[in-house]
């Protein structure tokens, strides 16, 4: 067994283990926001570890040219996607877990929707 096979296999196994932990969190965590946390860890570190392992095992030009843009895009786009999902979950009223201490995003009413009334300046 060559050494790239061993190194790539270990990296792919670590990434798959991280994705499996995210699946366990998807099964057990009580809240939408906690599940977003679990998925984001798997989507950055787990996927990147698997792709780097595959790239070490098969270092052809096609594989490297396709997997390096995939790694960069995954690292750049996952935080934005998770942020958008979290904001949409809070605005659509997804319930918080009962162990939540306080909610920083809580607002009583969206007061910024209506513009202030126009008052003309008094004549001099």
């Amino acid at each position, binding site marked *: 067994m060559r050494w790239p096979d061993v190194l790539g*296999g270990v990296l*792919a*196994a670590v*990434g*798959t*283990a991280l*994705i*499996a932990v*995210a*699946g*366990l969190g*998807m*099964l057990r965590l009580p809240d*939408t926001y906690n*599940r*977003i946390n679990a*998925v984001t860890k*798997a*989507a950055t570190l*787990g*996927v990147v570890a*698997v*792709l780097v392992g*595959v790239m070490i*095992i*098969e270092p*052809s030009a*096609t*594989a490297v040219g*396709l*997997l390096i*843009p*995939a790694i960069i*895009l*995954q690292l750049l*786009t*996952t935080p*934005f*996607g*998770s942020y*958008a*999902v979290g*904001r*949409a*979950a809070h*605005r*659509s*009223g*997804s*319930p918080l877990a009962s162990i939540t201490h306080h909610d920083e995003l809580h607002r009583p009413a969206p007061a910024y929707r209506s513009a202030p009334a126009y008052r003309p300046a008094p004549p001099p």
Partner: protein
Amino acid sequence: MSWVDVLLVVLGAVMAVVIGRLLTGPANADRVVALDLGFVVFIAATALLSIRLDVVAVDILVLAATLLGFLTTIAVSHLLERRPR
């Protein structure tokens, strides 16, 4: 039965959990999160399948699924946000 098969079976189990959460998510936001993890599992399984089948051209599906997963997450979260609660 090589080690790649073991990893693919683990990813299949995670995909079963994802489908269960897609069907029985309490809120609609839980379904969006499950869809995100489903794309993650698909990307990893496709990359492992390219060394299992020894076909390098399968890696183009990894790049396509990366782009499609990001766009799907953004689009579905916008739909969820605009919906009256």
